[in-house]
């Protein structure tokens, strides 16, 4: 009570702190429109939906707003000098004598923010253009609803990435979760889509709990949730874990693990990855934008943003690395045995996110950020080509049922942009994915301890699997003899005379644009570093100016000589950074070669191998488990869902039986059942009422006359022996 009183008193007494005090530079106030433009687009889409607009107006509105947002982001990037706070309005300002809780609605722009915002808005715009054509079957029905969802997502994601404090990040974090729920459940008439939306939302809630608790602990330990103040605190402690003892015991050790839980939920890592493959029930542009390129990298962003906290506990980053590495391997093995191409891409996303976490864990935040950046482009291309195929073949996604796309009329652009995406994902030499993945893999061998070498070899093996499953898709779908079967979403067309609809202008344009982006994403690696002693190109430059700078390679630490070489680690006696170029190229080529053999040169060999494996008792488990996704969903159902379901049924029984039955209805039923004994008296015959009246009167008279006798009789029988 006292504290609250004091709080209120100080609130009234002291004027709220002005945000402008925190600002060091000329603030580009127009930057807030990066946030507001998607919100405006949302409102206008809502108006379109209310007016039942039957045109492409919602799409055009969204495209214009998102494109303006992208242009503003570029302007912000070009004018960027150093980290700064851009105030919008005062949001939460609570101060009292012992401390304060301040969360302003303000933007914190540093290079990490800009790195993320560039691909969030930069991919949001072309994907909206793609959806203009892709969603046209829904014009007048769910068209406005779809673009409203995309706008909500862009608003929330900007909030998450650009927010000035952890509470704004949390706002965006919940916002993107909600947008994801909205868009996965877009086809709400389909039970599978509804179930997938619910699953995504509920699994994400588990992670969100971690984030909420982490924010609370950060505030209670460090007294602030604003990034710039946190940075000041860490700078004054030289990021030394020992000197944080003054902040009190267990909380500094709990914070990184709670943040990890949040990141693993949103970025689909073990044990919370199960929602992402199911999220493919949403429209494909959504899968490309939210569930591949942007939203799922929010976890990587969170950890990069709060990187200093992860140095507070010795095992925090190794845990991140191991979870990431294991997820990458598990998801890659599942992706190898799926037939639905969208689902393969979904597992591949989980797997690549695993690589990013591995990068964060082995102190290569630079590699993680670079991989986020390149992955955003090439995975968007892959999903959008899958979408184009799905769109053209009436919902067909089975890679066994479409073949030879490359030679079909009007499908060339789709086939070759898909090839670009596949090459990047497989880490083919000199593609963007090759450089970003190598940065992570090499660092696993450089950073000592915690079994990182094992993890490094495991990741190399996973990279080989990645090349295999990626080209399995491409060789099956785009090469080989021409042949196809239409899917089941025919919209009234006759399946016998079905002809695929090749994509038109908008889709082809976007595919080429993003595929070029995927190729050009290799360029930052070759850019000259402005900062001396730094290597790794443009991305390193961006990460170096952020809280995640600890994981940026510098020329002085990566090329060591003499005694320090022992700490540097090596692969097969070579410098890891150099060795990795050869190793990962070779591994990628092996995976690609195996895929070529089984899925183009001799397709029947794949089936023979599978039936051979299934025929032997000793090896039967392998294909079965991989095709059934290692039974993880079934495991969760058995261990978590079923007990909860039983508990729920039990509570329902108690509620229905004891609370409703006994207490509520029981008490209500009591007067009625008592009344039942007397109701025969109320028979409607006037004279029988007369009889009961007379009888009653007679009884009363008799009682009055013989009261004394009755009393003494009762006394003698009940209390017989007593005087």
């Amino acid at each position, binding site marked *: 009570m006292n504290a609250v009183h004091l709080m209120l008193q100080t609130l009234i007494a002291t004027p709220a702190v002005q945000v402008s005090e925190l600002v060091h530079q000329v603030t580009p106030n127009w930057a807030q429109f990066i946030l507001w433009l998607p919100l405006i687009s949302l409102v206008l889409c809502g108006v379109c939906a209310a007016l039942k607009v039957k045109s492409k107006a919602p799409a055009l509105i969204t495209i214009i707003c998102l494109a303006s947002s992208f242009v503003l982001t570029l302007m912000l990037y070009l004018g960027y000098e150093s980290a700064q706070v851009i105030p919008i309005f005062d949001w939460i300002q609570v101060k009292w004598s012992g401390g304060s809780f301040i969360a302003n609605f303000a933007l914190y722009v540093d290079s990490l923010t800009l790195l993320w915002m560039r691909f969030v808005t930069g991919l949001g715009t072309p994907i909206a253009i793609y959806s203009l054509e892709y969603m046209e079957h829904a014009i007048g029905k769910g068209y406005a609803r779809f673009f409203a969802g995309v706008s909500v997502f862009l608003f929330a994601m900007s909030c998450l990435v650009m927010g000035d404090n952890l509470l704004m990040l949390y706002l965006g974090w919940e916002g993107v979760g909600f947008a994801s729920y909205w868009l996965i459940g877009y086809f709400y008439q389909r039970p599978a889509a509804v179930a997938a939306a619910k699953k995504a939302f509920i699994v994400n809630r588990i992670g969100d709990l971690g984030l909420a608790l982490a924010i609370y602990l950060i505030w209670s330990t460090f007294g602030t949730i604003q990034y710039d103040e946190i940075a000041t605190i860490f700078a004054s402690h030289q990021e030394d874990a020992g000197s944080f003892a003054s902040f009190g015991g267990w909380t500094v050790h709990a914070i990184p693990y709670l943040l990890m839980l949040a990141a693993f939920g949103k970025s689909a890592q073990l044990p919370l990855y199960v929602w992402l493959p199911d999220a493919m029930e949403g429209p494909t542009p959504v899968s490309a934008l939210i569930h591949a390129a942007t939203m799922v990298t929010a976890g990587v962003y969170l950890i990069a943003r709060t990187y200093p906290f992860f140095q507070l506990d010795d095992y925090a980053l190794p845990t991140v690395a191991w979870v990431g590495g294991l997820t990458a391997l598990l998801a890659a093995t599942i992706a190898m045995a799926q037939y639905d191409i969208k689902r393969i891409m979904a597992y591949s996303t989980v797997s690549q996110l695993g690589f990013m976490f591995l990068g964060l864990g082995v102190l290569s935040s630079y590699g993680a950020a670079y991989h986020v950046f390149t992955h955003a482009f090439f995975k968007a291309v892959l999903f959008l080509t899958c979408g184009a195929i799905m769109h053209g073949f009436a919902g067909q996604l089975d890679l066994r049922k479409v073949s030879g796309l490359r030679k079909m009329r009007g499908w060339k652009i789709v086939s070759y942009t898909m090839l670009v995406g596949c090459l990047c994902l497989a880490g083919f030499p000199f593609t963007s994915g090759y450089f970003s993945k190598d940065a992570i893999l090499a660092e696993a061998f450089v950073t000592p301890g915690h079994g990182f070498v094992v993890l490094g070899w495991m990741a190399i093996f996973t990279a080989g699997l990645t090349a295999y499953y990626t080209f399995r898709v491409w060789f099956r779908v785009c090469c080989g003899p021409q042949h196809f079967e239409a899917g089941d979403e025919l919209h009234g067309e006759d399946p016998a005379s079905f002809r695929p609809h090749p994509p038109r202008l908008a889709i082809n344009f976007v595919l080429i644009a993003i595929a070029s982006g995927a190729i050009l994403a290799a360029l930052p690696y070759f850019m000259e570093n402005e900062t001396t002693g730094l290597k790794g190109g443009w991305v390193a430059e961006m990460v170096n100016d952020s809280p995640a700078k600890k994981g940026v390679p510098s020329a002085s630490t990566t090329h060591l000589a003499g005694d320090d070489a022992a700490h540097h680690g090596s692969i097969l006696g070579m410098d890891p950074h150099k060795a990795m170029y050869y190793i990962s190229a070779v591994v990628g080529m092996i995976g690609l070669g195996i895929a070529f053999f089984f899925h183009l040169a001799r397709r029947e060999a794949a089936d023979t191998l599978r039936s051979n494996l299934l025929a032997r008792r000793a090896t039967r488990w392998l294909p079965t488990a991989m095709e059934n996704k290692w039974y993880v969903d079934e495991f969760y159902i058995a261990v978590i869902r079923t007990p909860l379901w039983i508990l729920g049924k039990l509570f329902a029984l108690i509620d229905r039986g004891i609370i409703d039955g006994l207490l509520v209805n029981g008490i209500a039923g009591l007067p009625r059942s008592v009344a039942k004994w007397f109701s025969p008296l*109320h*028979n*409607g*015959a*006037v*004279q029988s009422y*007369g*009889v009961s009246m*007379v009888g009653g009167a007679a009884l009363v008279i008799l009682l009055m006359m013989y009261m004394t006798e009755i009393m003494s009789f009762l006394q003698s029988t009940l209390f017989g022996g007593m005087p």
Partner: protein
Amino acid sequence: MLASFGAATLASYLIVSGILLVIGIIGFLVRRNLIVMFLCTELMFQAAAIAFVAVGRYYLDYSGQVMVIFILTVAAAEAALALALVVFMHRQRDSLDPDVYGELAE
């Protein structure tokens, strides 16, 4: 007690009152005609009135007679209402048997 006709005691009045009441009750319970049943209730009223007057006289208190005036007033009002009801009911069902109106219960 009944030895001298002129010296009627309180008991004689109360006995008459009691007889009237019992006749009323029996009549109300056994007759199958609403008008007669209604007359029987009037009889019971008068039994009460006689008892009031007698007891009032016995205690030299006029409130007994005051009570009787009230009873007569109430009885007159009630008679007007009841007879109107009886006439109305006869028009409705063409019968004055109380059992015919049994569905009035509930």
